[in-house]
């Protein structure tokens, strides 16, 4: 590939790939990233709350189950 072909290729590439007007973001994204990382809250769906409440109630009414559960935990 001679110099002329290299220049042609360069022009073709410059035409095909348009320059991005602004390479840098307009604002600092790092604080938002830190905020997102710290938001790591556990979301518990409603059916899990229902299961937890039901299990607690059953264990309150039938405390004899507790030793059997502890034995298998």
């Amino acid at each position, binding site marked *: 590939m001679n110099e002329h072909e290299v220049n042609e290729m360069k022009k073709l590439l410059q035409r095909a790939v348009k320059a991005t007007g602004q390479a840098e973001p307009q604002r600092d994204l790092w604080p938002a990233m830190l905020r997102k990382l710290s938001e790591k809250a556990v979301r518990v769906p409603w059916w899990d709350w229902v299961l937890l409440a039901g299990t607690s109630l059953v264990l309150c009414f039938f405390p004899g189950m507790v030793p059997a*559960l502890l034995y298998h935990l």
Partner: protein
Amino acid sequence: MDKHPYLRAYLAGIAVPTVFLLVVMTAYTLIRYVYDVPIAVEKVIVFPMAAVPNAWGLWNVLYLAFVQRRHFSLGVFGGVLPLLLAPGGYAVTRLLNFSVPAEVFHVAPFALPIGIIVYYLAWKYFVGFLNAELGIA
């Protein structure tokens, strides 16, 4: 953080029942020696002390090796474990001639579903949290 994923899965699995073991041992000690309940639990204590934590660790390894890639719920997979542990625990009591109190048989039909729910929640939230922290979720 990509080395030994199965070792990390095993450790994450055994961590939860190992912590609960403190509660179990405290309860057993109180029942046996403080309230003088005449049940020789020391004969069968090996099951919750050794078999259960190892079963949790191995179950988590199995989940990582075969199940996780199919996007199967960790909670549901953990909820299946009591179906193996309950017969195992009963087998230990039979092998060691441990007389299970009659009350246990009365509550057994309700205890198994409750155990499955407890395991489902423990695996979903506790083991799931540890798996995420160890980078294998």
